[in-house]
């Protein structure tokens, strides 16, 4: 049963690479935006909140099309980045990672923001009065007390990035070895005569990876909780 073709192995490897890069690259920004939304009141607070959640409510194909317009070879941002940094998104695996990051961003933000909001803001004031500047206060008090939300947000984001299909295929198409992730590969196999068995194999593998990610998050959360009770 688990006799994978080279194309399938490539798709799995690519999916993992895309999901890891998307999650790790967007995590710092997600922490910053979640903190800003949780703790700061500023003009444009509502607009930022809406913008972050847009990919969650808009059809994925719309997000993919928007990415294509903005980050495509001739798009304003895409052309600028290609010219100045040599960073090309269109029809590359980096584009798949970008699409995955944007689609998973709202799912990452939510638990992180909630856990920031659940930390008593007076603890931060106590830290300030003890001599910690705002950055130290964040690193030593607010962030560790939000560990649970960070773990949940990261795993949710990773799982979403792994499964992203609509925006990815719209933005970077379905090129084997470059942008064909597991969902795209499954889609291609379903379109092929006699591809059902292979599609089922990949589906099972995708399910196994998702369950493994969930298990890792459980372990990490438990560790964070235990850390909070003894050490």
């Amino acid at each position, binding site marked *: 049963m688990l006799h994978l073709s080279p194309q399938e192995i490539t798709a799995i490897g690519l999916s993992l690479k895309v999901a890891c890069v998307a999650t790790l690259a967007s995590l710092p920004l997600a922490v910053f935006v979640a903190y800003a939304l949780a703790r700061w009141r500023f003009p444009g607070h509502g607009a930022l909140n809406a913008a972050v959640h847009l990919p969650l409510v808009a059809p994925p194909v719309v997000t993919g099309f928007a990415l294509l317009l903005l980050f495509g070879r001739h798009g304003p941002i895409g052309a600028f980045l290609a010219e100045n940094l040599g960073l090309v998104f269109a029809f590359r695996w980096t584009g798949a990672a970008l699409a995955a990051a944007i689609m998973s961003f709202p799912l990452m933000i939510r638990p992180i923001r909630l856990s920031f909001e659940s930390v008593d803001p007076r603890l931060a004031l106590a830290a300030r*009065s*003890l*001599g910690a500047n705002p950055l130290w206060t964040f690193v030593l008090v607010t962030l*560790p007390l939000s560990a649970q939300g960070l773990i949940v947000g990261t795993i949710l984001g990773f799982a979403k990035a792994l499964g992203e299909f609509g925006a990815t295929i719209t933005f970077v198409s379905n090129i084997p070895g470059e942008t064909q992730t597991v969902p795209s590969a499954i889609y291609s196999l379903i379109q092929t005569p006699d591809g059902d068995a292979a599609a089922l194999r990949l589906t099972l593998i995708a399910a196994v990876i998702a369950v493994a990610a969930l298990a890792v998050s459980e372990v990490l959360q438990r560790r964070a909780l235990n850390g909070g009770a*003894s050490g």
Partner: protein
Amino acid sequence: MIAVDLRHERGEFRLTAAFASKARILALHGPSGAGKSTLAHLIAGLLKPTQGRIAAGGATLADTSCGLFMPPEKRRIGLVFQDALLFPHLSVRKNLAFGRFFTPSSERRVPFEAVVETLGIGHLLDRRPATLSGGEKQRAGLARALLCSPRLLVMDEPMAALDFARRQEIMGLIERLRDEFAIPILVVSHSADEIMRLADEVIVLDRGRVLAQGLPAETLAIAGRSMEGGRFSIVSAITARGAFDARYGVTKLAHPAGEIVIAAKIGAGDQQVRVLVKATDIALAKTRPTDTSVRTILAATIAALDLDAGPLAFVTLELLGGERIMSAVTRLAIDELGLAVGSPVFALVKSVALDERGM
């Protein structure tokens, strides 16, 4: 040690305060919503004054006239909160080390061991805050604030969440901190007996302004007359020597004005003790009553009468022997008994109303 002259506005609330004090323990008193905590937070730098100047421990912390606002982490004001606010993810030891870590080594004047010893928290160091009792948390909170070698300790209702016994314990510790570490203390309190016991000086706030400043007994008495419900915070102190009567379990203090009976054992042997009595716990009689359960009957003359068109009369009594105490009665009673300044009276205090701790 502390000088404040500021105005702070936030929404509807407006606080104006100007005072200076050299007291070792200065108390901020007043009803809820008077601005006590706001003022404490302004001093700690957690709030920015709209206008004005704050100085403490020889340093100017904020001065809007020259755009100076020292952030809280630079002020070295040790803050103690009502609920201690220990960091829940750190052990007690790491909580204590937190402020110390950020204090430059040249400024570290308070030794770790001495603080742990004085506050009796050595056995708690490896515990998590969640496993501590209220009193233990507050002792750890005091230690944490103290270990950043602050120029001023600011305590915001440090005992409000504690029961009677724990409050006695924490008050004793605050007195020891004052004596052993020579750090001035500002304590926010709505409790008249805490202030009477601890403070050298008190500032009374009411609806965002300073109502009175001075020695605790006098100031609380002045403020008590003009503040709604303030009569309950008028407390007087009487000093006397006493002996324990084991048969009834009471302490009998000999005072020139009469015997004072306290429903507990206080003091050791023939030690001089201070007893606190609330103005609302003193009744007046023109003749010495003989058929009453009240055991403490003190001979006095009326030294001053303070009354207006309101229902209350505040009576300053001069006890035989010279000590003065305050009583709050109704204006009706004064008129019907025909009392005036100079009238001899007897002050009746229920024994069980007297606070049993030796001061």
